[in-house]
């Protein structure tokens, strides 16, 4: 197990390396002079040259990349163009709200998706099944920001149950996390349904029924438990995608998380912040995917790591 974990972590390194090069080149691919951008609009030519030396932009690209790496390891990603404070400080401020939002969304998606999927599978070809399958097909087709707008109109503008803007308070979290949960919820429900139906047809389920176990014991103890393994994987993958989806939902609800910061930084051309956010999102996504792989093995004893 440990050897496998270490091997998988080592395997991440080349990809991480590549991602860091891509993100490093990002600032250089932006049209315009990065030194002028950093110095600000009303800087003198001397000020711009001064900034160029300070940022190390007078070196060749490979040398600059090495500086970038060295500084990154020390957590130094330069100053935000807009606020003139270290980028990491700016980012840190917005990290917790996004974590809170994505965690609550994935919990909603998992719990409701699981219930809906099991309900549909155990009552196959019934009205319940039809409703669940139709709703889940719709759920992956409705843009999350459209759902967000509808929820705002209904529950904030008309009923005043929840605030229009999202926030980290419990009431402020409800509408954004439900909007963000919809797509993964629908995907999980579909997946639970098909996974459950697949498992229900397997030999060990028939054996359990044959040896006289009741319907509930067969369904929930034997079938569900085995159907859950791929579902957990699926939920993990959905969590990874959800991190990207948060960008749109945070903008709809004016919820000041990382995604909101990302869009703000594009608006203000605050490229150092943007650079770190892209790096952070990629890193999170890669780690989530690794975690998913490891959980998969922990849940299914048939899988051995060599």
């Amino acid at each position, binding site marked *: 197990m440990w050897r496998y974990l270490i091997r998988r972590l080592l395997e991440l390194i080349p990809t991480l390396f590549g991602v860091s090069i*891509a993100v490093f080149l990002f600032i250089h691919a932006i*049209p315009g002079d990065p030194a002028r951008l950093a110095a600000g609009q009303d800087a003198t030519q001397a000020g711009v040259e001064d900034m160029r030396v300070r940022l190390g932009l007078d070196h060749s690209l490979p040398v600059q990349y090495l500086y970038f790496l060295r500084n990154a390891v020390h957590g130094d990603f330069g100053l935000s163009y807009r606020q003139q404070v270290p980028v990491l400080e700016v980012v840190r401020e917005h990290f917790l709200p996004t974590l809170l939002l994505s965690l609550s969304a994935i919990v909603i998606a998992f719990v409701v998706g699981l219930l809906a999927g099991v309900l549909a599978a155990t009552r196959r070809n019934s009205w319940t099944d039809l409703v669940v399958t139709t709703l889940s097909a719709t759920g992956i*087709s409705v843009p999350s920001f459209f759902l967000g707008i*509808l929820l705002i109109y209904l529950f904030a503008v008309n009923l005043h149950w929840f605030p229009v803007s999202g926030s980290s308070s419990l009431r402020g979290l409800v509408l954004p996390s439900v909007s963000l949960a919809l797509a993964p919820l629908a995907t999980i429900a579909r997946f639970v349904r098909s996974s459950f139906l697949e498992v229900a047809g397997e030999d060990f389920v028939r054996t359990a029924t044959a040896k006289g176990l009741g319907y509930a014991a067969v369904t929930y103890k034997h079938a569900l438990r085995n159907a859950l393994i791929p579902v957990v994987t699926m939920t993990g993958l959905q969590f990874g995608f959800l991190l*990207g989806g948060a960008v749109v939902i945070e903008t709809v609800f004016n919820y000041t998380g990382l995604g909101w910061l990302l869009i703000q930084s*594009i608006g203000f051309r605050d490229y150092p912040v943007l650079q770190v956010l*892209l790096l952070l999102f990629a890193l999170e996504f890669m780690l989530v995917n690794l975690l998913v792989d490891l959980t998969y093995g922990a849940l299914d004893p048939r899988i051995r790591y060599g």
Partner: protein
Amino acid sequence: MASGAAALHGRERRGLDLWRRFRRHRSGMVGLSVTLLFVLMAVFGRLLAPYDPAQPDYLHVNAGISAAHWMGTDNFGRDILSRTLTGARYSLGIGVLATVFSSLIGSIWGLLAGYLGGWFDGLSGRVIDIMLAFPGLLLAIGIIAIAGPGFRNVILATTIFGIPIFARLVRGSALALKERAYIEASQALAAGSSRIMFLHVLPNILAPILVYVTLRIGTVILIAASLSFLGLGVQPPTPEWGAMLSEAQLYLAIDPLMAIVPGVAISIAVLGFNLLGDGLRDVLDPRIR
């Protein structure tokens, strides 16, 4: 010559057989109908529109549903129905163009990687990993941040966003096919690599590619609408659906129709492509997923 005609006949029969099976797939047929409807809307929407989608009418601002304006008017008094009908071309245009481009580029890339193998495959695998390391929208947002917003750059961003998925799919299929006897036979007959790749390998993986293309069009429509909604895609006053929703947010309290009409249009269009893709998958290749 005779054998060529017989092969064509066989292919036609296979196509007919697939169509018969697809016709029995209920949700697939619903998807096909919806998709066709939206394609017609993209082509003829501008002609069907009762008003000029850009024409303001300051005397009838944010008017509700009426005989003159079936879906009401927006904050400039523009007819929402006309704007939505006209907008179909942007969403569908981006969805179809970007997906076709990324499937072409991705398929060639994947074929080369899978069939040639070696260092090229190793390197391209790394590049694919890097491109897929950015979750969802993020890669597209990064590209837009560099290239700037606008219709053409949204196509560029969504094309690049789709390439690694097709490259990975085709690489896997090409790798599996490479070991088949008939490919070995072609190699033994000294057929060139490109001949084998495009004449023997590619036709055999067209089915999964087609399924993916259909399913991806829905995803790309969603991504493009999200970009426009964020102000990074097609810009107002162009009646792109995502851009319309972004404008609508400010007037939500007084005119929810501004949001509901384009939002429902996006949802149904994406649903259509998804149902069609699911149906095609069930009929063409029950093995995938």
